[in-house]
């Protein structure tokens, strides 16, 4: 089985995903597929792309579902990709060392040269973040756009994962979650960002920001209805209106 880095750097790169403003538009999923189709894990093969059962490799998928019933029910848009866990079972379960966690920044990657396609990692990952490429016979997964975020041929501002750069609602953020003073860590602290299924003990790096409290009303003491401008029955509304006018 594969070991985790014995002396990882404090840097833990990851994503912060804001469920308050994700509208479930799939922009992140498609732009991810587009970038990574030409990236270090290329191609993201699509089987039967124009046929009855298209089956493609996607590093990022958006699930939309409802929770609750009646007035309490909510629709949730939930983007799901590798969480780059601190304790990733997908790595420790790997029999060949193909699946590994980078010591320098915590990104979990697959070394395809070592991958034998046994799929143990996909069984081990409770988040369903592994994507098997049946054509290539190897496991693939979110790379956190490692070939974009460090790409010195790009302008600095463009060195963020594709899903973050493209998100139309700006619901996705990227940064060092190992640094408590980073923008993403501060965002997590201020918004009560949480781990997905922390009880499993994999210590995900990515964080989700919960929906903000919905604003039922604009302020606490607003009345239930507007008060009439003139006393009922006085019949004077139209006469009263011109008093609203200046001059």
């Amino acid at each position, binding site marked *: 089985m594969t*070991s985790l880095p014995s002396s990882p750097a404090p840097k833990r790169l990851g994503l912060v995903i804001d469920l308050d*403003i*994700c*509208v*479930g*538009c799939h*922009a992140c999923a*498609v*732009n991810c597929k*587009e970038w990574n*189709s*030409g*990236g*270090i894990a*290329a*191609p993201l093969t*699509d*089987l*039967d*792309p*124009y*046929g*009855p059962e*298209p089956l*493609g490799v996607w590093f990022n998928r958006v699930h939309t579902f409802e929770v*609750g*019933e009646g007035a309490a029910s909510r629709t*949730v*848009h939930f983007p799901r990709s590798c969480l780059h866990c601190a304790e990733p079972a997908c790595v420790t379960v790997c029999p*060949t060392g193909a699946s590994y966690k980078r*010591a320098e920044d915590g990104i979990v*990657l697959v070394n395809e040269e070592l991958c034998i396609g046994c799929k143990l990692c996909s069984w081990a990952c409770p988040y369903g973040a592994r994507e098997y490429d049946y*054509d290539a016979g190897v496991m693939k997964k979110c790379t956190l756009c490692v*070939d*974009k975020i460090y790409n010195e*041929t790009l302008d600095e*501002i463009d060195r963020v994962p594709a899903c973050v*750069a*493209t998100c*139309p*609602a700006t619901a996705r953020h990227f940064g060092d979650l190992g640094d408590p003073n980073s923008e993403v860590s501060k965002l997590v602290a201020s918004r009560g960002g949480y781990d997905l299924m922390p009880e499993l003990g994999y210590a995900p790096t990515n964080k989700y920001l919960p929906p903000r409290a*919905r*604003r*039922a*009303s*604009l302020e606490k003491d*607003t009345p*239930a*209805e*507007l008060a*009439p*401008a003139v006393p009922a029955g006085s019949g004077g*509304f*139209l*006469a009263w*209106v*011109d008093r*609203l*006018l200046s*001059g």
Partner: protein
Amino acid sequence: MPDSGSQQRDPEIAKSVPVSDEVKYTTCYMCACRCGIKVHLKDGSIRYIEGNRDHPVNRGVLCAKGSAGIMQHYSPARLRKPLKRVGPRGSGEFQEIEWEEALATAVEWLGAIRARDPKELALFTGRDQSQALTGWWATQFGTLNYAAHGGFCSVNMAAAGLYTIGGSFWEFGEPDWERTKYFLLFGVAEDHDSNPIKLGLGKLKGRGAKIVSINPVRTGYSAIADEWIGIRPGTDGLLVLALVHEILRAGKIDADYLAAYTNAPWLVIDAEGAADHGLFARGADGAALVWDRKRAAIVSASDAEALPALTGERRLPDGRRAVPAFELMARRYLDPRFAPDAVAAETGVPASTIKRLAVEAAHAAFNEAIVLDQPWTDAHGRRHATMLGRPVAMHAMRGISAHSNGFHTCRALHLLQMLLGAVDTPGSFRYEPPYPRPIPPAIKPAGPAEAGKPLAGSPLGFPHGPEDLLVDAARKPLRIDRAYSWEAPLAAHGLLHLVVRNAWKRDPYRIDTLFLYMANMSWNSAMNTAETMQMLAERDEASGEYRIPRIIYSDAYASEMVAYADLVLPDTTYLERYDCISLLDRPISDSDGAADAIRQPVLKPDRDVRPFQDVLIELGARLKLPGFVDAEGKPKYPGLYPDYIVNHERRPGMGPLAGWRGSDGTAEGLGAVNPQQLERYVEHQCFWRAEIPEEARFYKFANRAYLDWAKAMGFIDRADPIVLQIYSETLQKFRLAAQGHGAAQPPPEHRERVAAYFDPLPIWYRPFEESDGSADYPLHAITQRPAAMYHSWGSQNAWLRQIHGENALYIHRATAAAHEIADGDWVSVVSRHGRIVVRAKTMEGVNPDTVWTWNAIGKRSGAWNLDPKAAESQRGFLVNHLISDLLPPREGGYRYANADPVTGQAAWYDLRVRIEKAPAPTQVSEPHFAAAASPPLAARPSILRYGAKFRPQAKKT
């Protein structure tokens, strides 16, 4: 097995490989949003498409559709060469021909028509983004039978807005995302406009503004709203008028705004039965009159010194009575029938909720008013030290527009905005240049057609009164789609949905050639799809001739419509051509600046295809249409569309593009032709934007600095203030005509209808399909646009079809339970018009009286080069089969279009159905149509390894 010792060093990764050899900027066309994109090219192929951070529309972001542009560009559904039909219509049997033969054929057909009677050509251009060209081409050809797809889409919004506030939602204005505190979103799913709304919602959420989404279905935007109101379809207008009732009752209105900027104080003649009853009292100069509170006298509304009254009956100099429009309006909506308690049952929204919405809107507008420290001068020369804002913004789209009561519903929305002082003030809805424009807009529809001659003006425009309709001496329609007739007087976008039937029926006359561009009229762009397919393919029994004699179709893809064409002109993809996103057409401006853009060819076509706009210009030259040839008959634009974009002048100094004009390229808006203009656009990321001066950014309708700027830019002809219209005199003119006044009157059979629906104040009525109160069809059925799809284009895309490859009928859980329907069951959905059998899915977030599905997922088997067994054609479906294009026969048997009676907007959201469990389980949705033959296309790959060749290679470790 590796252990910790053997895995100390991470493998080398090729982290810094150049992404591309070249980056080209252009404009997206994966929907109507028209975002700026950067296309990365590597080894001659597309490596990556990303949003352009500098672009005013999308600010760097890009949606799922735009991100799937690679698959759109390389789609195996792309047509490859011109096609001539060799089998029967609808068979899909074609022969490939050379362009010369294709063009010569078209010229032969069109030339004969033009010499005989130009209106025998009907040119309808679907989701065209080049209407400034296509409309002008129709004018020069001489046919009035021209329109794009707006009659389906949003003409209720556009017309109601332009006749009320001189602008509209969607492309002519936007919420003040930076400042609004209360945002009401009506009937908006993903559509229009895509990325700016998402960017805006993110901003509002970050600022803590409250978002209320009013929509029968809780998808995308509604899911993140602070409050979702699952209204019953078609009742939004009633809800809005109840809000109007509430704020009037409470006096929570911006009276100064109404008096200064709207026609609320204008005196309306009260002389029942007279020819000018309900029109504005006007002075000798034609200006409307108001009662001046200061001088206690009737004065001109344009008198800057006046303090106009909003109420009070007055005596006109001729002794007749007149009352301010405000008073008529207030009397109507203060009526208890508009009280929240009176409308709750109809709308499905509890009265307490309606009352609370009114409290919140009033609170935001008046208790949280914004004052910008920005001095400005109004159109009367009065200096204001600050700008007062009402931070209540509204936006609306298809849920409002696609109903037969949509025009008035949209007018009701604008009335609510005006009452709150929330049109183009800080925090409210804001215009985007070139809007606002005079009300109504100046351009009137042109007709009739004359043999061998151009049309006198634009085929599409805005009637100012009954005299501007396109009807003949017998008061019958002049246009094939009956636009601008008494059946659809304000049909500002035409009626694409009536063209096929009327051409088939030869009513009001026979046309020879139906010329369509990007309009999938045999499938998802038709109501009554199955019968439409028959009409397209039906022959006249006696002559054997097709009832629609000739059909020319241009599209980039093998859509369902291709099989019904006689001649197919294959278009390029959006990455293979020049385009202009023109201010003369559908602008991409924002509320702080005017903008336009181009597309430039990013790749050369690898097929024998040509840009439709090039083809149209070539046809224009070959037909020797005025404007397309010079005095010697030589082509005026030998360089085709890019030549036209640069050198065409609509009038001196005004061309398709507003940037880098003038001989030295420094002029903006108006200026001489600049031969280097396209080069300048390419150098500037393919867009141009001019900032509105700071003091000109609000109150644009009455802001001296804005009006002068807009005139200098060529957006408006005169820098006069634009007075917002709570009361529409134009509508009253039509009503008077229906009541027997004036020279242009409707024929008797249309009078009652015109009189009823041309109310000068907003009205609400039940959508027509529901108006008989029938219990046989107790449910509404509507569609929603998925965020990852744009009409039928998206659902053939190898990536996007993995997101939405099939659709289900979504039913509220309780409603489904009452019908004993469970998830995955097959159900019959029955309307007055038809029946479909589809799979059901239950959910909570939908109005219990409403079923819905995603738009345009269903495909005809074999179309678009998908496998004939693709899910889109097996389990996917259209609700179009349930929607009639006509209303049931009225007395005398006549059938009106299933449309709004004011604008002719297709009322496809009016649909009423019943559902029942399908008698027998099935695997294929019904109706199902056998596959037509496919035109010659590239082979469909069974495995797609796109991008494999780009994979960066790491050094071996």
